[in-house]
């Protein structure tokens, strides 16, 4: 199928991008890496969009350390995240996630902002930022605002981004000494979206567990986290099973995904132990 765009404009800077969106009469659509949007357009899942290409806005790209926060620009590409030394040191969960996202060609173009804004239920980065307690920065017609990751993902492809707003970046609290991050997922083929996946953090304050591919959006498994804090692995597996709401489709049934989440949790825990030793 041939895509049908309503128009295209390249934004010079953030202000310009916001203006273009403001003038688009509700038909504006941010174009970042294009790895999800262009595919959707080519299948005519969306058409008539006035594309506002933000990919050249330098201020939205890059990684910086800012006190206890790691600030990552929305346009930072998956491949850049994967090789960034600051991220490897302060938020290794993101480094690990990159190896599971699609293939090199897609990682070279796809952006973390695009991944978060797109909010695919099986995507890695949304679950990562949820587990990491990141803050997402939005800019829009009414100014800037910050949204906690927990309040950002609302449903399948649905986020807290309002009409006319752009996700400019995220801030991730830097990992404390001794903090451990693991990511476990299972997919039918390497690079496919996960059938189920887990981000597991062990902090001095306790565990953080976010699941993806097992609900309409990434799920923070509080019940399982609590059981893990008490060292109750079987309890955590049981709790997780109750907290997720996996879909069934042509790849696997909900029952399989639920089972898989339990297996992945046990494996993630043994990864954590392996990390610690």
């Amino acid at each position, binding site marked *: 199928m041939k895509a049908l765009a309503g128009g295209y404009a390249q934004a010079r800077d953030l202000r310009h991008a916001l203006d273009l969106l403001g003038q688009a009469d509700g038909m504006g659509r941010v174009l970042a890496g294009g790895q999800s949007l262009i595919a959707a357009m080519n299948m005519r899942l969306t058409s008539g969009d006035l594309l506002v290409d933000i990919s050249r806005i330098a201020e939205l790209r890059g990684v910086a350390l800012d006190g206890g926060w790691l600030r990552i620009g929305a346009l930072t590409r998956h491949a850049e995240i994967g090789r960034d030394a600051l991220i490897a040191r302060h938020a290794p969960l993101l480094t690990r996630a990159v190896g599971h996202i699609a293939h090199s060609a897609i990682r070279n173009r796809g952006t973390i902002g695009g991944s978060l804004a797109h909010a695919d239920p099986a995507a890695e980065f949304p679950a990562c930022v949820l587990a990491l307690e990141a803050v997402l920065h939005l800019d829009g017609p009414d100014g800037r605002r910050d949204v906690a990751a927990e309040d950002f993902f609302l449903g399948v492809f649905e986020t807290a981004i309002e009409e006319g707003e752009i996700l400019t970046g995220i801030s991730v609290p830097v990992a404390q000494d001794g903090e451990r991050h693991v990511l476990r997922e299972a997919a039918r083929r390497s690079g496919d979206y996960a059938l189920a996946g887990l981000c597991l953090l062990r902090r001095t304050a306790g565990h953080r567990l976010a699941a993806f591919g097992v609900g309409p959006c990434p799920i923070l498994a509080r019940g399982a986290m609590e059981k893990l804090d008490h060292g109750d692995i079987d309890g955590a597996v049981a709790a997780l099973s109750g907290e997720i709401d996996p879909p069934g489709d*042509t790849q696997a049934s909900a029952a399989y995904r639920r089972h898989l989440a339990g297996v992945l949790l046990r494996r993630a825990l043994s990864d954590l132990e392996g990390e610690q030793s």
Partner: protein
Amino acid sequence: MTISFGNPDRPNSYIGKTVPRPNAPRLVQGRGKYVDDIVLPRMAHVAFVRSPHAHATIGAIDTAGAKEVKGVLRIFTGAEIAEVCTPWVGVLAHLKGLKSPPQHALAVDRACWVGEPVVAVVATSRAAAEEAAALVDVDYDPLPVVTDMMSALDADTPVLHADMGDNLAFRRLHEEGDVDGVMATAHKVVSARFKTARHTGVTLEPRSILADWNPAEQQLTTWNATQAPHMIQTVLATHLGLPEGRVRVICDDVGGSYGIKVHVYPDEVATAAISKIMERPVKFVADRLESFSTDIHARDHEIEAKIAVDAEGRILAIDVDDWTAIGAYSVYPRTSAIEGNQVVNLCGGPYDFANYRAQTTVVFQNKTPTCQYRAVGHPIAVAVTEGLVDLAAAELGMDPVEIRRRNMYADDVYPVTSPAKMKFEGLSHHASLNKLLELMDYDGLRAEQAALRGKGIHRGIGIASFIELTNPSPFMYGIGGARISAQDGCTVRMDPDGSLVALSGVTEQGQGTEAMLSQIVAEGVGVSPDRVRVITGDTQVTPYGGGTWASRGAGIGGEAALQSARALRGAILEVAGAMLQSPAEALDIRDGQVVDAASGEVRMPLEELGRIVYFRGDTLPKGVPRELVQTRHFITSDYPFAFTNGVQASYLEVDTETGIVTLLKHWCVEDCGRIINPQLVDEQIRGGIVQGLGGALFEEIHYDAEGQLLNGSMADYLVPMAAEMPDMVVGHVETPTMESELGAKGAGEAGTAGAPAAVMNAINDALRPLGGQVTAMPFTPERILRALGRITD
């Protein structure tokens, strides 16, 4: 003079060597020419409105909104196309009882599957045509659907085509010996129910056609991505009411076919009809979503099968009840009964046993039509046979290798006729198996498997022997009344500079046919392969031939090339003899030079001979023939098919908690007779294995109960990808066919034939101690866990 293939040091020894592919630089540099690359003056594009219903009557068609779209030229309904294009019926006389209703290029009155073309929109661009197609309003009245295969013949299932009386398209029962009697008294009888999933071929280049009716010439020229240009020529001529000679089908580069592009597709015929009506070039290139719902599907079979063995593991009887659902129509002109028919022909293939019964039941349903796809029927027959043999071995506590050794036809019994009545000229099951075991270090792997089992790691080794049908004679299609040629021809010409042009009726689909032909012609005449240009795929240029299917390119087209090259060599030497005043027999051609056969001394370069013949013919004695163009044709006649054989092995690991299978290594030893280009054969085997592994682990087209296609995109239909593929070791045994001087049989489908069975047997080998077994492909993680009882809800 015959070629001493056994002597690697013979002059011009290109047959049997890996030589560079002449078309590779063109393809990798992006200089190929696919249908989509061709742009003609006044060319229009067509997009199709396709049925969103699996079964519905077509009511009023409102095109008013669509006509408003800028760039739209014309919109056609089925009735309008039917005025210039007659419907076709996909039956063959030798498949007794096969029935199928007339099928139109665009559905008339009734649509029978999701994706069937209903309305054609022609515009100045594909984008405009698509935009308008979305605005065409068709008034559908949904009809009851038939989607389930096994209940298609039940009394309370609606009949899909009322005129056909019932949903049975074809049934064939073959019986040999006394199956029931033997089963009743045998030492062991083991049974299983197998399933192979609905697949499609997923060619890199989608189906494409550019049709150009020139009213001034009264000729239709089409550029097609096809495997069988001459067959398409006949079909277009027949259904558009044109003389065959006024249809020219050109086939430039083709981006993979796998059998998908050897069939007649309604949208392609409609495109040609539209060109005829509009008197201008019209292009149709399927997009990926259309490909999934309109390229032929295949392999949708359910099989109940039994094997009886004696206490020593000898096979006494095999009983197969095969069912397949072929969609709404039997595909024209090869029919959709061939796959089931092949299952009947091929089950039990490698084994010397006496009592055999096989029945195939082919039913209609409201899904995309199925037809021949790489290794037609083989993966099914091999899975059933090899699955049964492994189950019998397990039941007897016998090693899977041992049971095969006890039953495979001995290497010295040929010629022999199988209980399925297949004639084998010469196969090498035991030599191939021995070579395989050596390549894979079977005993070492078994030891490793046992050691790892102790550590909770579950690995499996699976073996699958197979036979493969290649080089078909007219017994495949011709005797059934189809104008599908089993013979093929080649013309070889020497030009003044001593270079050669070879025109062949077989086609290049990206698999290397041109390389194969160039080295045969090079050796046959006596020049280096880079002095040979190969032209294929043009019905007004090449000799008449069948094209590329059923692994016939090298065996049939290659022999025609060899014979025409040998004839040209003779013609050249005749002229040379006259010029050099030497008997032709005393001369030879080596590396582009006429030489003294005995001493090898150079007598004259071919360009000198060319110069004299073409420009100074006055200096040659009057009456010396100067026929530097020679054509030969070849057809097999001793055997209906040249069977090949081989054996594959898979080594894999099953994660018994997730159900995920990791392929560790794969081996294949096959016997395709004379190997012309080892690298091309190995890559055919590897590519074929990959498609077989796809079927074993990933590929499955899903429909819901209403006949809606659920996974028609590359995101949802999982093709095998590089990361999951194991290393593959390929070995060969060579048993040339005596039907031809070349001795080549086919190699293109062997990999696909055996790989799924090898994987199935390996998975079951891994699961056996845990008490699980899988026989329904693809073996998804979920199916494996369910077989292990790890998930039950």
